[in-house]
């Protein structure tokens, strides 16, 4: 077993960075600050100072760690294959253990309880309509008052519905479900056990909570059918259950997980053609970090979408938009600066609308006035289901 030291980071992992700096331009917080402490190399250096050289965990260390979006854009850029995400998760877990009170855990606890989340969401929707909350300043989307009910149509594939996305953007699931069904598959829906994948808890270092949610999710999505996910952040974590839990069941579970576009791209010949409704719009594909950098499966989105719309890619090499799950709420200033770069790339592309396969990115970009849809919502609108 590898020795563990004060931050609990694997010593081999921590030693694996050669400080070449090739990650720097791929780090959104380095890009907007130009400061080493806000770069992957600087953060690793800071972890080494604490874990190897006994420097105290102080405010500047916390600022360095907490400013990380955990987009993991540094990982594919790293020729040495440094597992930055794993080191950051270990660090966050240790920092969470050291915090006596962490209000975030109450927020994330709600995510695991679908009835409560729905209740709170509906209350929030009412309060929003009474104009009692500054939604824009808080980065909140307009939450629906009434949501359509999704019904299972078979058991060829599972559709993972998640927490916030199900409570706030269920109409996206409905679109995704119709498109998947059009390829000839019956869709099964998980019960309340699979209420939340645990991604936000994991990124905040709340490992125990994340593992509890993972155990429930795995139980709710039993069998051997593929598990399709339409939220890139959830998909990334579900695919890493095997790594995090280390059990054979978790490994087998993770192998069944696919981003819904990966699955659709593999069934391309089953998909209906584009109907008369095809509009003359240009769609810019925004690659969510956890699809591009973590799952490394962003290409199928463009492959599927380009059958139904004119697709352009952004020229920023998949640099993060700053949403980062709860990041936009925790670090609003950095998140907005990071988003400004993305908005420039979107403007340069000349696209009419933006497709985003991750709810966090959708909310964050929409708050800046961008027209953002889930890729399969765009497909759902123009597909000729009868054709």
């Amino acid at each position: 077993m590898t020795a563990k030291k004060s931050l609990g980071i694997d010593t081999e992992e921590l030693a694996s960075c050669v400080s070449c700096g090739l990650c720097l331009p791929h780090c959104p917080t380095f890009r907007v600050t130009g400061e080493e402490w806000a770069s992957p190399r600087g953060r690793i250096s800071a972890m080494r100072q604490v874990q190897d050289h006994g420097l105290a965990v102080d405010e500047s260390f916390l600022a360095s760690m907490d400013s990380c979006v955990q987009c993991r854009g540094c990982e594919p850029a790293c020729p040495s294959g440094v597992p930055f995400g794993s080191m950051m998760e270990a660090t966050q877990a240790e920092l969470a253990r050291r915090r006596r009170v962490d209000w975030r855990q109450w927020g994330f606890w709600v995510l695991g309880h679908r009835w409560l989340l729905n209740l709170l969401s509906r209350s929030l929707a009412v309060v929003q309509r009474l104009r009692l909350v500054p939604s824009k300043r808080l980065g909140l989307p307009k939450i629906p008052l009434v949501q359509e009910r999704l019904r299972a149509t078979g058991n060829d594939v599972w559709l993972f519905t998640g927490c916030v996305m199900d409570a706030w953007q269920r109409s996206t699931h409905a679109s995704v479900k119709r498109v998947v069904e059009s390829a000839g598959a019956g869709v099964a829906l998980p019960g309340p056990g699979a209420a939340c994948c645990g991604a936000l808890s994991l990124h905040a270092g709340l490992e125990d909570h994340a593992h509890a949610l993972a155990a429930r999710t795995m139980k709710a999505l039993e069998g051997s059918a593929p598990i399709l996910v339409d939220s890139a952040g959830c998909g990334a974590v579900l695919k890493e259950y095997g790594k995090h839990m280390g059990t054979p069941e978790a490994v087998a579970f993770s192998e069944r997980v696919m981003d819904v576009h990966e699955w659709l791209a593999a069934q391309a010949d089953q998909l209906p053609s584009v109907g008369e409704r095809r509009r003359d719009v240009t769609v810019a594909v925004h690659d969510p970090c956890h699809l591009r950098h973590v799952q490394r499966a962003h290409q199928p989105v463009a492959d599927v979408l380009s059958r139904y719309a004119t697709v352009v890619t952004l020229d920023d090499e998949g640099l993060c938009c700053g949403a980062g799950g709860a990041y936009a709420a925790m670090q609003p200033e950095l998140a907005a600066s990071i988003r400004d770069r993305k908005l420039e790339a979107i403007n340069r592309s000349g696209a009419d609308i933006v497709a985003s396969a991750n709810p966090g990115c959708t909310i964050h970009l929409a708050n800046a006035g961008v027209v953002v849809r889930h890729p399969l919502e765009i497909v759902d609108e123009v597909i000729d289901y009868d054709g």
Partner: protein
Amino acid sequence: MKFRKADPLMRDLRRVLPSDRVRVAPLERSIMGRDASIFEGGRAGPVCFPISTEEVQGCVDAARRHGRAVVPRGAGTGLAGGAVPLEEPVVVVATKMNRLLSVDAEQRVAWVQPGMINLDLSRALAPFGLHFAPDPSSQQVCSLGGNVGTNAGGPHCLALGVTSAHVLAAEVVLMSGESVVLGDAGGWTPGLDLRGAYVGSEGMLGVTTAIAVRLTRNPPAVETLLLAFDSVDAAAQTVSAVIADGIVPAAIEMMDKNIIWAVENFVGAGFPTDAAAVVIVEVDGLPGGVAAEADRVAELAVERGGSVRRATDDEERALIWKGRKSAFGAIAQIKPNYYLHDTVVPRTRLAEVMNQVYEIVDEHDLQVMNVFHAGDGNLHPLLLYDGREPGIMDRVHAAGSAIIEASLAVGGVLSGEHGIGIEKRDFMPLMFSEADLDAQARLRRAFDPEEMANPGKVLPTGASCADVKALDNIPEGVWG
């Protein structure tokens, strides 16, 4: 040393910069204590992030008034320790000065700020069909100010020349606090070529605040060939044969067996992992000439037992270059640390020196990989090691010295493009006489009489007749 708010230096710096752009937290100062070289143990004083020439002047002025040295820093990707701060100097970081100031596409000149990333400049110039020719392997991250400081090279400098040939003028803040422009953006410099002296001076003459760069037209046609050989000798002979044939390719790069494996593992570009060496040759220019030259290069390779693969499109070309340019970072798949040398030897002696390098490394029980600019004889042997192994650094340094001596013995030089920095400072007397070094020290003092700009770098102790206090005191542990 702690830098408190009440410290007179801090007070003066905060008069010039808002407090969030002068950083003194111990963690941040230690993070800024190193660059991409092997030298650990440097320590920054206050870390300043100016955004204008006036602010740089203010930082330099404050440092001077309080007798503190100034170390300019770009992206921190230098390999010779040039940006490693010794004795807690004021570190002036250029990363927030990263704008393209102006482009004159007709005159092919652009003014840029020093913190702009090399590749960002070429990307911004793409709509004009122009680019900045020097393309160090770190071009996706290294800054143009750093390129000026080290007189950086890159694969495509074989035909077009290194940074000095592409810098028309530099705006520099001298240690007096005065801002001057060396050279002329129009390309006509009256008097002594101070611009020429400045490019490659590794931060010892002042702080760069703006650069007028020469822009190069994108070539209308490009051919990239990947040549594979069963022996390093055959590869080296092919390199010599290409040049001897009168062809000056845009780039000729060579990689040996060990590095091919590491790189292929990262990029999956289809590099032949069973070859003893591969050579990447790129020819560019007008379509007819390019095709003829590429054919001739292929012929010369085949005559020497090589196999030839030609990139069929830009994507394949980009992948081959990605492999070449990520080679250094890919090392950590094998060992967590590397020490990269940068000597230059006559092209005709390449194979001979490489074989010596293999012997030296065997003698010191180390591993080596070679990936380098073969066209101009610029060797880059990478010594691989795990810094946690006791006594390893002695072996690494001993092997390094032997490689340098072997290179100099055949008429080579200490550094092709990475600079001298801390790394090769003490090897300078192997190459230069006392009179040479004295002349260099006097040139430096003409710009910076107090030797407050990046002290402790490049020029070895005792090189000057004056009492050079800063040079004696490299903190313990700097030889990481």
